[in-house]
C-alpha cells in the first residue's frame, strides 16, 4: 500500500458528468498502477550538474540560475558527499557569505533512493523527508541521477499519454474495421446465450451490444435504438421461453441485424402479440414491471424491419434490422 498517496481527482471531486466509461475507469487506476510500474531511473534526470565541496557558493548559484534548477549533488572523487540546494544558498546570503565554499552550507545528511525502486518509493521518501530532490544511486551505491516531484509528474503524464495513444489506436482500428478488412461481404457476429428466467442478468447482453456498436463507430442514436430493441428481445427470451435462447448481432457496414431464436413454447397468434398492451406474462413478472405488452411495439418503433416466425412447440425466431447510414462504421455502401 501507499500511505502517502494524494487523492485522485475523482476521489476529491467525484465523477464529473453522468457516467463513467470503461476507458475512464482504466485511466483512474492507471495512475496508481503507474506509480508502482514506473521505476525511479525511468523518470529521473540522468544528466546532472554537479559541484565540488570547494566551489564558492556564488559560482553554484550561477549554475543553478543558468540551468534553472534548485539543487545539485556535491561530489568528491566520484563520491556523493552532500546536496546543495537554493535554500542553503539563501541561508548563506542572509549572512552575506556567498564566497564561502559549498562544504560549509551543504546538507551532509544524504537521503538517497535506488534507481530500480518504483516511483512510489520516491513519493514516500519525499513526504517523509520533506525534501524537494533526492539523489538516485545504483546497486554499487554510485550516483546515477537526481529525482524531483516534477520528474515524477512528468513521468506519469508521459506514460499516460502513451496509454492514451494506444487506446486511440485500438479505437481507430475498431471503428475502421469495415474499411480495413476487404471482402465481398464483411460481417461481425456477436452471439449471446440467454438463460430462461435469469432476471439477474437481464439486459447484460443488450448493454454489451450497445457498447460494442459505439466502439465500432456507430452513431449514438443508432446504438440507442439497437439497445432498446435488443433489450426487449433479450427480456422476451428471459420471460417467455422454456429453455432460453440465442441472441445474435450481425454488423455489416450498411446494416445491423439482431435476432433471437428459441425452442419454445412458440407463439400461437402472432397478430395478437403485436397488439399494444397484450401480454402473457405471469403476475409475478408483471410485478417487476415487465409484461406491459409493449415489448414488440417498442422493437417495431426502433427498427426498420421486424419479422417473427413461430411454431407452437418448436420455437420462435425474431429478426430485427436497422440500416446504417454510410458515415457509420466508415464503411462503403455496398452495391
Amino acid at each position, binding site marked *: 500500500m501507499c500511505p502517502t498517496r494524494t487523492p485522485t481527482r475523482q476521489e476529491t471531486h*467525484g465523477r*464529473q458528468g*453522468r457516467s463513467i466509461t470503461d476507458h475512464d475507469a482504466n485511466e483512474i487506476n492507471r495512475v496508481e498502477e503507474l506509480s508502482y510500474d514506473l521505476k525511479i531511473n525511468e523518470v529521473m534526470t540522468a544528466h546532472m550538474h554537479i559541484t565540488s565541496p570547494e566551489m564558492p557558493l556564488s559560482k553554484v548559484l550561477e549554475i543553478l540560475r543558468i540551468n534553472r534548477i534548485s539543487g545539485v549533488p556535491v561530489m568528491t572523487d566520484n563520491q556523493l558527499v552532500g546536496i546543495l540546494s537554493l535554500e542553503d544558498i539563501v541561508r548563506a546570503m542572509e549572512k552575506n557569505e556567498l564566497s564561502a565554499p559549498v562544504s560549509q552550507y551543504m546538507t551532509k545528511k544524504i537521503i538517497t533512493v535506488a534507481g530500480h525502486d518504483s516511483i512510489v518509493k520516491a513519493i514516500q521518501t519525499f513526504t517523509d523527508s520533506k525534501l524537494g530532490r533526492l539523489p538516485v544511486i545504483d546497486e554499487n551505491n554510485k550516483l546515477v541521477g537526481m529525482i524531483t516531484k516534477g520528474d515524477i509528474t512528468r513521468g506519469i503524464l508521459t506514460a499516460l499519454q502513451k496509454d492514451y495513444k494506444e487506446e486511440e489506436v485500438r479505437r481507430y482500428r475498431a471503428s475502421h474495421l469495415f474499411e480495413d478488412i476487404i471482402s465481398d461481404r464483411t460481417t461481425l457476429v456477436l452471439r449471446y446465450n440467454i438463460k430462461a428466467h435469469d432476471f439477474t442478468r437481464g439486459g*447484460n447482453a443488450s*448493454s454489451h451490444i450497445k457498447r460494442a456498436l459505439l466502439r465500432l463507430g456507430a452513431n449514438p442514436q443508432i446504438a*440507442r435504438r439497437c439497445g432498446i430493441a435488443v433489450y426487449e428481445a433479450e427480456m422476451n427470451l428471459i420471460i417467455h421461453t422454456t429453455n432460453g435462447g440465442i441472441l445474435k448481432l450481425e454488423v455489416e457496414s450498411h446494416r445491423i441485424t439482431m435476432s433471437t431464436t428459441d425452442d419454445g413454447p412458440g407463439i400461437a397468434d402472432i397478430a395478437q402479440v403485436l397488439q399494444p398492451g397484450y401480454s402473457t406474462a405471469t403476475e409475478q413478472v408483471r410485478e*417487476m*414491471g415487465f409484461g*406491459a405488452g409493449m415489448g414488440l411495439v*417498442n422493437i417495431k418503433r426502433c427498427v426498420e424491419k421486424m419479422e417473427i416466425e413461430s411454431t407452437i412447440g418448436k420455437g420462435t425466431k425474431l429478426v430485427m434490422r436497422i440500416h446504417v447510414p454510410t458515415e457509420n462504421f466508415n464503411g462503403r455502401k455496398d452495391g
Partner: protein
Amino acid sequence: MDNLMNLQQIIDQLNLNVLTDPRDFALIQPDGGYSSDLLSCVMAGAKSNYLWITLQAHLNIVAVAALLDVAAIIITENAQPDFATISKANEQGIILLLTPKPTYEINGKLWEMDIRNQG
C-alpha cells in the same frame, strides 16, 4: 431552454437519499423526467438525461437506465433496492435516489421546480 436546476439542488430540495456512490451532482442537469413502473413504457418514453421516477427497485432497473442513459432514478415510497442492485448501479454509473414520498408528489414537485420535458 435551460433547466436551472441541477441534480444537487433537486436532491436537496426534495430531500432525496443518495444510495449510490457520491459524485458531483451539481454538474448534472436533467433535461426532463418520465414516470412509470412498466419497463417497456420507460424504454419508449424516457429520453437520455431524463430523471426516471419509479416504484420499481429490483436489479433490472439498472439495465434499463444504462441503456437509456438516464440522469438518475428516483425510487419512491421507500422501495429499498437490494445490495446487488446498488452495486450494479455503481458499476454502471447509474445514480439511485430514494424518497419516502409517492411518485405523484415527486412529479408535482419536479414540475414546480421547472423540470419539464422539452419538445
